[in-house]
């Protein structure tokens, strides 16, 4: 689905990710782990086209376009009083289907409703986004990403700041979408334990120790375990 070949990305002249190559297949559930500042977010930003690659290539296959990757950005504080209903936000996920058209089609609107139903948040449709709980807000963001794509979504630390119940709820939902609908999932996370439970692959971004493997390979590899404990330490900080 996505072929990444000798990818280098970074800021100004400093390379954060150097020479990364991997192949993402349809239906994969990839967890991107690694210490803070190692370039996890930079990597996904390059994937969704927010960051230009310095060298190397990201090739999209099967008619996948760059703007057809559903993106759930890192949680940042949306202004307290931003007036926007859940429906308005989820519908804006269909933005990539607008191109030069000024208005959303009937199909787009149906898609938004359908997605709300799928995530069991149809009852929140007319609620104001900023008045929702953190878990509900992230579900809305997930719904928006799903409106943008039903093939592949990229999530950047979707559970940061959520309580344990909302966290496991969100993880289950994402896993369900991956298993039932064959949705390809790429998720940046600090939570290695959960990654092992749900993911099919793990991508550890950590300078020279960067590696990409399946979960079973990862578990059987001794050298990797030390990296894993490092990642654990990182979450504790």
């Amino acid at each position: 689905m996505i072929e990444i070949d000798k990818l280098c990305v970074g800021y100004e002249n400093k390379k954060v990710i150097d020479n990364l190559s991997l192949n993402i297949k349809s239906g994969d559930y990839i967890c991107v782990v690694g210490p803070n500042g190692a370039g996890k977010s930079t990597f996904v930003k390059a994937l969704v086209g927010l960051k230009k690659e310095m060298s190397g290539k990201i090739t999209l296959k099967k008619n996948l376009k760059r703007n057809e990757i559903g993106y759930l950005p890192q949680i940042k504080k949306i202004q307290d009083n931003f007036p926007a209903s859940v429906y308005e936000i989820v519908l804006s996920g269909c933005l990539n289907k607008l191109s030069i058209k000024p208005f959303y089609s009937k199909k787009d609107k149906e898609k938004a409703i359908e997605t709300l139903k799928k995530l069991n948040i149809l009852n929140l449709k007319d609620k104001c986004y900023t008045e929702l709980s953190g878990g509900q807000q992230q579900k809305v963001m997930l719904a928006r990403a799903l409106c943008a794509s039903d093939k592949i979504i990229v999530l950047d630390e979707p559970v940061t700041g959520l309580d344990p119940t909302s966290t496991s709820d969100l993880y289950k939902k994402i896993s369900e979408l991956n298993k039932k609908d064959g949705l390809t999932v790429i998720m940046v996370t600090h939570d290695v334990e959960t990654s092992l439970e749900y993911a099919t692959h793990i991508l550890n971004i950590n300078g020279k120790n960067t590696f990409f493997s399946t979960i079973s390979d990862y578990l059987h590899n001794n050298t990797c375990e030390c990296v894993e404990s490092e990642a654990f330490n990182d979450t504790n900080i």
Partner: protein
Amino acid sequence: MIQIFSEMFSYTFILRAIIVGLLVSLCASILGVVLVLKRYSMIGDGLSHVGFGALGIATVLNVAPLKIALPTVIIVAFLLLKISENSKIKGDSLIALISASSLAIGIFAISLKSGVNTDINNFLFGSILAMSKSDLILSIICSILVLILFIIFYNKIFAVTFDENFAKASGIKTNIYNIVISVLTAVTIVIGMRIMGSLLISSLIIFPSLTSMQIFKKFKFVVITSAIISVVCFMIGITISYIFGTPTGASIVIINLIVFIIFWIISIIKRH
């Protein structure tokens, strides 16, 4: 009441001011929603001062004010946006700098020309007599353009305002929409400045949207209601100014303030 209105409308200059004022109120209020949410309200304020400077220079050169003010303010709007993207330079202090300099240049230029204070007063606080026929036509064209562009780009403007990164990932050229917003704002400010005065025009941008956000929680509702609030406040304000002979701009701002306080109190009551 009807008699007052028919009396008001019988004066050409008031009729002109009302037509332009209504269109500007409409444009300023819907753009205001975006500007307030993007935290760009100060840009509106800065631009109106730049407009004042441009008006002063136009007076000295004896050219139609809008012909100089419009391009100048658009260029400055463009520059301010570029600078605010660059986090190394502090946007707010730069706006303060530009505001003061433009005021100074404006006052300096006007005093060179006439030495009389009435022009300064009109430019700062607005004058209902300011609209000439060519101003009127230009204002109508610009306002309608602003409205049409806003409606066409509404969905994209919402997405860019709410979450710029997501919009960018969806393949939207967010820079273009930021430029569209600031150019539209510049146009609205220059047109409205003549009636409201350059010190008061930014209130037309900020007040209606803030008022509406006290109660409404949906983007579309906020846009629509702030447009309605703005238009209603303008009509009440200009009528009061006609009846009591008070300055038009100030009257409109005071009505906006009163409506804001009412909405604010309602929102507090609703919360309890």
